[in-house]
C-alpha cells in the first residue's frame, strides 16, 4: 500500500477539514474511482465531485460510482443541505455552487471554459463557504477549468492538491492549475487515496 510521506502527514496534523471538492475532465472517471476506493460508508466528510461530461440531461455518474463504492453517492440537488458520508456529483447543464449555509444551489449562467457545470464556479463558492476547512483536489483533464478554483481554495486557506501531471491521463488541467498557483501538494492517485483515508481517520467533530 502507498504510504504518506512524513511531510504530508505533518501538513495534515492539527487541521480539521470539513469538506472535499474534486474536479476533473478527460480521464476523470477512472481517476476518481481510484481516489475514492475504500472510503468507508460513514466517512465523516462530504465529497463534492464535478466531472465534465458531454451535455446530457441525465447523468449516470452517481449510479456508476455507487456500484463501486461504500459511500452514499447521489446527484446534488438545488437547496439540499450537504451531509457527511456522501459523495455528490454535480448535475449536467447547470452550474453548481455551495452557499454559506452549506446548501447546494444551481444556476444556468453561461458556460465557463465551455463547461457547465464549471469546476471554477464550484470551487470558488466552496472556498467562500468552507474557507480553510476545505480540501480541493484537481485531477486529469484537457481544459483549464479548475485552475482559478484551486487558487481560490489556496487563497482562502484551504488545502490544494493537484494530481501529478506526469501520471495524469491528460496533463493539461493539472499543469494549468500548478502554473497559476503552486498547490500545497502534487500527488499521485494512490497517495491522494491514502490522504483521503487518513483525513477520515483523523477527523474530530
Amino acid at each position, binding site marked *: 500500500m502507498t504510504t504518506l510521506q512524513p511531510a504530508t502527514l505533518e501538513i495534515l496534523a492539527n487541521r480539521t477539514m470539513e469538506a472535499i471538492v474534486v474536479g476533473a475532465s478527460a480521464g476523470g472517471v477512472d481517476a476518481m474511482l481510484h481516489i475514492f476506493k475504500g472510503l468507508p460508508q460513514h466517512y465523516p466528510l462530504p465529497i463534492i465531485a464535478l466531472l465534465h461530461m458531454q451535455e446530457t440531461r441525465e447523468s449516470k455518474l452517481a449510479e456508476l460510482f455507487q456500484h463501486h463504492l461504500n459511500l452514499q453517492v447521489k446527484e446534488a440537488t438545488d437547496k439540499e443541505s450537504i451531509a457527511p458520508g456522501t459523495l455528490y456529483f454535480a448535475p449536467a447543464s447547470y452550474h453548481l455552487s455551495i452557499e454559506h449555509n452549506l446548501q447546494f444551489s444551481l444556476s444556468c*449562467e453561461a458556460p465557463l471554459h465551455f463547461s457547465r457545470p464549471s469546476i471554477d464556479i464550484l470551487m470558488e463558492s466552496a472556498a467562500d463557504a468552507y474557507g480553510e476547512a476545505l480540501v480541493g483536489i484537481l485531477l486529469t483533464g484537457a481544459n483549464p477549468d479548475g485552475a482559478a478554483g484551486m487558487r481560490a481554495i489556496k487563497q482562502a486557506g484551504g488545502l490544494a492538491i493537484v494530481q501529478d501531471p506526469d501520471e495524469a491521463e491528460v496533463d493539461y488541467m493539472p499543469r494549468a492549475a500548478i502554473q497559476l498557483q503552486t498547490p500545497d501538494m502534487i500527488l499521485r492517485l494512490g497517495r491522494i487515496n491514502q490522504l483521503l483515508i487518513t483525513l477520515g481517520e483523523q477527523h474530530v467533530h
Partner: protein
Amino acid sequence: MSTLDIELRLLMEAIYLRYNYDFRDYTGASQKRRVVQAVRALNCESVSELQSRVLHDTDLFTQLLQFLTIPVSEMFRDPSYYACLRTEVLPVLKTYPSLKIWVAGCSTGEEVYSLAILLREEGLLERTIIYATDINPVSLDKARKGVFPLSRMQLYTKNYQEAGGKQAFSDYYTAAYSAALFDRSLCENITFADHSLSTDSVFSETHLISCRNVLIYFNRKLQDRALGLFHESLCHRGFLGLGSKESIDFSDYNRRFEAVDKRERIFRKL
C-alpha cells in the same frame, strides 16, 4: 462576514429601498459572481462604489439588472418537458372552454413562444390567454418583439422535433438577415407584464403555470413565497411545471401538489 459580503448585503438593501426590487433572498454564491462581474463591466472600483452610483442613476440600475437577472433561455429547452405537456397536460386542459396560462420568469420569451406553438398545434391557442411575466423590462421588450438569433434555429429545430413538433419548425418564423421573426399571430393572446415573485401578489386564476429555472435563484424562504403564489393562482387541480433540476421537496408545499411526471417536474395542485 467578509467586507464583500457586507457590501453585497448593503447593495441589495439599497436596491430594495430605492427601486423596490427585492433581491435580498436570492442565493448568495451566484449573486456574488454576477455582482462582481457587474462591478468590472460598469467600471467601478468596488461594490460600494457601484451602490452609490446606482442609487443616483436609474439607467445604471437598468444595466445592473441585466447582471442580477439571468437572461438566458432557449426554445423547447428540455424537449421532453414540452412532450410531457403535450401528452399529459394539454389533453386535460382541452376540457376547459377557456384557459389561462402563466409563464413566470419568462425572460426573453423563448419559453412563451414554445408554449404558444404547442398550444396552436393542439388547437388550444385561440381560447388561451397567456400571461408572461418577468422583472426585467429589457427582457420583456425582447420577448414582445419575438425576434431571436437565426443562429439558434438549428438547436431550436432539433428541440422542437424532439418535443413532438408536428410541422416544419421554419413554418413559425421568417428569416431576415441574422434574425428569425416569429409569427405575430402566435402572440395575439399573450400579455407580457412586469411581475415579481418576490414582491407582487397573485393577479389571476390560472390553469397552468410554467416557471422554469427561476426558483433556483431563490433561497428556500423565497421559493416558498413563489410556490405560495402559484398555489393560490392555480385553479382546482391546476398544473405547475418547473425547471428540470428544480424541486418542491424542500418546501411545505410539497404536500399540496402531486407529481404528474416526476422527471419532468410537472405537478398538479391537490
